[in-house]
């Protein structure tokens, strides 16, 4: 393995991000051809993945790592094995066609350049995710897919529905991502490894750990949220608000497959237990049936496809959970088949929408004359979706049925679930392939016309591939199933699928049952749809509404908390702040019973007494002052006296600063007073004055106590000594205070001056704000009160 090959893996994950930054310029130079030009990037990535195939066929693994945060053992590392390669090929291959398709689909859109940027960033995130070795690298890319898909789903951001769908997807998948992070941290703690390749070598350790169930739950929460498993599935159909190329990409090879990828990847680490088996198969099975049933119910092409995606994801989760060799092989085949036919189907839905102006299956009819190429592509995609020979979908279905016909009763139950789910998805495929194209020509919003080359190349190529792939079983066995199966299974797998139709094989009968069931439902499609609609209406509650209820509940709760804490009465804020400060000072002292003893009376020189005297006079003046301005000035006198004390006890820098701060405090307080038009005289009644005075005394006493306690401990002078010895030789300065500020602890100072700058900015904003709208609002309020 040459080093150039290794680096190219990291490049693969980074290249789309680099190109994403250039995409808007490419768009303005290349114009209508931008899609074709930008598609070069995923195409090149696809070709470099193809270059890995021979290595992977030999069951080798290619790795590359760059240090990222070495102190935490976090590296930016990637690896390619069978599983990543399959995903990488699907992401980059389908991505190529999606980019071309986007160029044609969004032609003339004012923000097409931005769209390409988002799309490429999303592609890069997905590639990084499936190539990542270090689990934290994986997490970063995982969250990047959530963020970039948020941008894509909300691309049409002027529509409220698109914004809602985007936020929903971000909340669900991003929230799942946090669970995943916790799960991954647990796994690193249990195994002592923070790379996937490392974890795979410790198979069996995690399952024995007492933390197994926690780690499993967290990782599954992340994967289920991403792959839209019940009950976290609702974001996926809503994500249809995105432009069609996005749906086609998110639903076929990417985003939702990320969860499936994670489950497949974690199978050796977390799998093989009863919990794993039952959680995955039950959740997957429920999602399959629910998604497929809801798909039949829909009348919008994209919605139908969206719900079949749910069904397919459920199917994949179920197969991974089932975990036998046949089930895993079936899952890999179905994964490839689904990516191809679902990508094609979505693009076809987009072409129909583009050509006719509607996606309503009840309106569309008779398009075969106007859109012949689309028709052929749709039929081919449906063949794979329905699992007819010779399509790769047929191989997938045969293999999964084979897995379920090996054992006894639970297997047969799962078999029934699979047959029912597949039959319903087949119905959807047939409806989309035939209903819009056959029958009498119907009126559509535009006169129907065939799509352009850019629109058609994607669906046609993917649909054709999905069908003819079934002819290359020896290659699929050796180059796809064996390496990928071995990655998931963590044991060598020797796949031997072949294209055959052997009536002695029970799986063939299961396939026949699926077709018969599907055909019957297709025959009675309208009745089935109406029946399911009525059931849905009878339930009358959807998870989507549940999400809204939860979100609005959170917002109401936040309002209530804000209302309680942020009431707008400055006096109470300050009082609360100082009461809490006093509590923070006293409670630890009392809890640890470390109240300091009364110190001895110090022996001081007369000038030291003098400084203390000035401070006392200043304080007395503050208390007795008749006007506020006098009190503020007197406070400054007290501060100057403290500065004097600092000076006498050998801290010239501190004293110097104290003088300046006191001066400015007096000036600023006086300005604030005039600015806010406060009364010259303090009008507090005795009760309030006593309360405020008590709080002030408590805070002052608290600070004094803490200082006394601090002084009781022996002062550790080693740091002082270090600074004293090194400040001149290495920092060229005799003023240690300044050397510390600008050199030894310069990064602290950098933080502090950033805060000072931000505070200045904030105060400036507040003062300006008060001058304009708020003041007017207040006046109005007063007017209303009067």
């Amino acid at each position, binding site marked *: 393995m040459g080093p150039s090959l290794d680096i190219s893996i990291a490049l693969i994950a980074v290249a789309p991000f680099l190109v994403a930054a250039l995409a808007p310029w490419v768009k303005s130079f290349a114009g209508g051809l931008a899609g074709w030009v930008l598609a070069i990037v995923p195409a090149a990535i696809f070709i470099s993945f193809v270059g890995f195939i021979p290595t992977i066929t030999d069951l080798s693994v290619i790795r590359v790592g760059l240090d990222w945060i070495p102190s935490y053992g976090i590296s930016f590392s990637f690896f390619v094995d069978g599983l990543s390669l399959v995903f990488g090929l699907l992401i980059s291959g389908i991505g190529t066609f999606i980019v071309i398709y986007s160029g044609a689909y969004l032609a003339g859109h004012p923000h097409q350049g931005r769209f390409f940027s988002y799309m490429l960033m999303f592609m890069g995130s997905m590639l990084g995710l499936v190539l990542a070795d270090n689990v934290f690298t994986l997490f970063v890319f995982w969250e990047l897919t959530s963020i970039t898909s948020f941008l894509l789903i909300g691309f049409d951001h002027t529509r409220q529905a698109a914004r809602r769908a985007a936020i929903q997807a971000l909340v669900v998948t991003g929230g799942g991502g946090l669970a995943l992070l916790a799960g991954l941290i647990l796994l690193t703690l249990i195994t002592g490894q923070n790379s996937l390749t490392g974890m795979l070598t410790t198979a069996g350790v995690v399952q024995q750990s007492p933390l197994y169930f926690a780690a499993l739950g967290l990782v599954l929460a992340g994967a289920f949220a991403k792959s839209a498993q019940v009950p976290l599935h609702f974001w996926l159909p809503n994500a249809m608000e995105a432009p069609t190329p996005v749906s086609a990409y998110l639903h076929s090879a990417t985003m939702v497959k990320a969860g499936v990828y994670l489950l497949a990847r974690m199978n050796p680490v977390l799998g093989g237990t009863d919990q794993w088996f039952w959680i995955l198969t039950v959740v997957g099975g429920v999602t399959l049936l629910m998604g497929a049933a809801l798909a039949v119910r829909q009348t919008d092409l994209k919605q139908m496809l969206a719900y079949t995606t749910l069904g397919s994801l459920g199917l994949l989760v179920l197969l991974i959970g089932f975990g036998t060799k046949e089930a895993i092989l079936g899952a890999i085949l179905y994964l490839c088949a689904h990516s191809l036919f679902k990508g094609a189907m979505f693009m076809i839905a987009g072409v129909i929408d583009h050509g006719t102006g509607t996606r309503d299956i009840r309106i569309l009819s008779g398009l075969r004359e106007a859109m012949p190429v689309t028709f052929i592509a749709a039929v081919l995609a449906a063949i794979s979706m329905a699992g007819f020979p010779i399509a790769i979908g047929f191989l997938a279905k045969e293999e999964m049925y084979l897995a379920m016909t090996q054992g006894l009763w639970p297997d047969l139950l799962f078999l029934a679930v699979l047959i029912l789910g597949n039959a319903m998805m087949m119905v959807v495929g047939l409806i989309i392939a035939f209903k819009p194209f056959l029958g009498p020509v119907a009126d559509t919003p535009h006169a129907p016309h065939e799509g352009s080359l850019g629109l058609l190349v994607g669906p046609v190529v993917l649909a054709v591939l999905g069908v003819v792939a079934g002819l290359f079983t020896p290659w699929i066995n050796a180059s796809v199933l064996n390496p990928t199966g071995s990655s998931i299974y963590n044991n060598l797998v020797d796949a031997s699928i072949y294209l055959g139709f052997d009536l002695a094989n029970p799986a063939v009968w299961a396939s026949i049952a699926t077709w018969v069931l599907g055909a019957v439902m297709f025959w009675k499609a309208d009745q089935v749809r109406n029946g399911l609609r009525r059931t849905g209406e009878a339930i009358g509650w959807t998870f989507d509404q549940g999400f809204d209820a939860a979100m609005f509940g959170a917002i109401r709760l936040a309002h209530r908390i804000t209302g309680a804490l942020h009431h707008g009465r400055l006096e109470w804020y300050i009082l609360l702040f100082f009461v809490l400060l006093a509590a923070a000072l006293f409670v630890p002292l009392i809890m640890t019973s470390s109240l300091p003893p009364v110190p001895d009376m110090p022996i001081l020189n007369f000038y030291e007494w003098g400084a203390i005297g000035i401070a006392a006079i200043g304080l007395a003046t503050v208390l007795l002052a008749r006007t506020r301005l006098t009190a503020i000035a007197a406070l400054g006198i007290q501060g100057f006296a403290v500065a004097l004390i600092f000076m006498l006890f050998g801290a*010239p*820098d501190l004293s*110097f*600063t104290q003088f*300046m*701060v006191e*001066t*400015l405090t007096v*000036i*600023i307080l006086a*300005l*604030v007073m005039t*600015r806010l038009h406060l009364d010259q005289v303090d009008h507090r009644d005795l009760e309030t004055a006593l309360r405020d005075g008590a709080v002030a005394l408590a805070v002052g006493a608290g600070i004094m106590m803490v200082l006394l306690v601090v002084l009781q401990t022996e002062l550790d002078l080693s740091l002082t000594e270090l600074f004293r010895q090194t400040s001149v030789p290495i*920092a*060229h*300065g*005799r*003023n240690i*205070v*300044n*050397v510390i*500020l*600008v*050199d030894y602890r*310069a*990064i602290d*100072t*950098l933080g502090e*001056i*950033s805060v*000072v*700058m931000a*505070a*200045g*900015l904030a*105060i*400036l904003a507040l*003062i*300006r704000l008060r*001058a*304009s709208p708020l003041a007017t609002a207040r006046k109005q309020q007063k007017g209303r009160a009067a």
Partner: protein
Amino acid sequence: MNTVIFRTAAPILAALMLVFSVFVLLRGHNEPGGGFIGGLIGASALAIYGIAMGVEETRKALKVHPITLAGFGVVMAAISGFISLAFDVPFLTGLWWIFDFDGSEVALSTPLIFDLGVYAVVVGAVGTIALALEADEGGD
């Protein structure tokens, strides 16, 4: 406050304070002083000038908005840190260049640039607050 004596003395006083603030800033590495203290003196000079001559006059004299100065200071301090990176040492490591200038030593260093940044931030931020408060309501 707005007496003739104050208005006559304020510009001279402010000018002296500004010069003194720079002096305090530059001696800071070896004697008491430095960017923070120097900045506070500079900000006081702005405040005095503002009270005596009016905010408009002060802004005119300053040419830039003081908050710009504060932002510039943070950038300057950060840049002094990045210079270290160019010399392949960790962020914010102090670098020194000592020149012999006709017998007297002139030391230039990244901590000096950093301290100039601190000075600019303090003058800018505190000056902003003071001037904003001095301005009449409605203006800034």
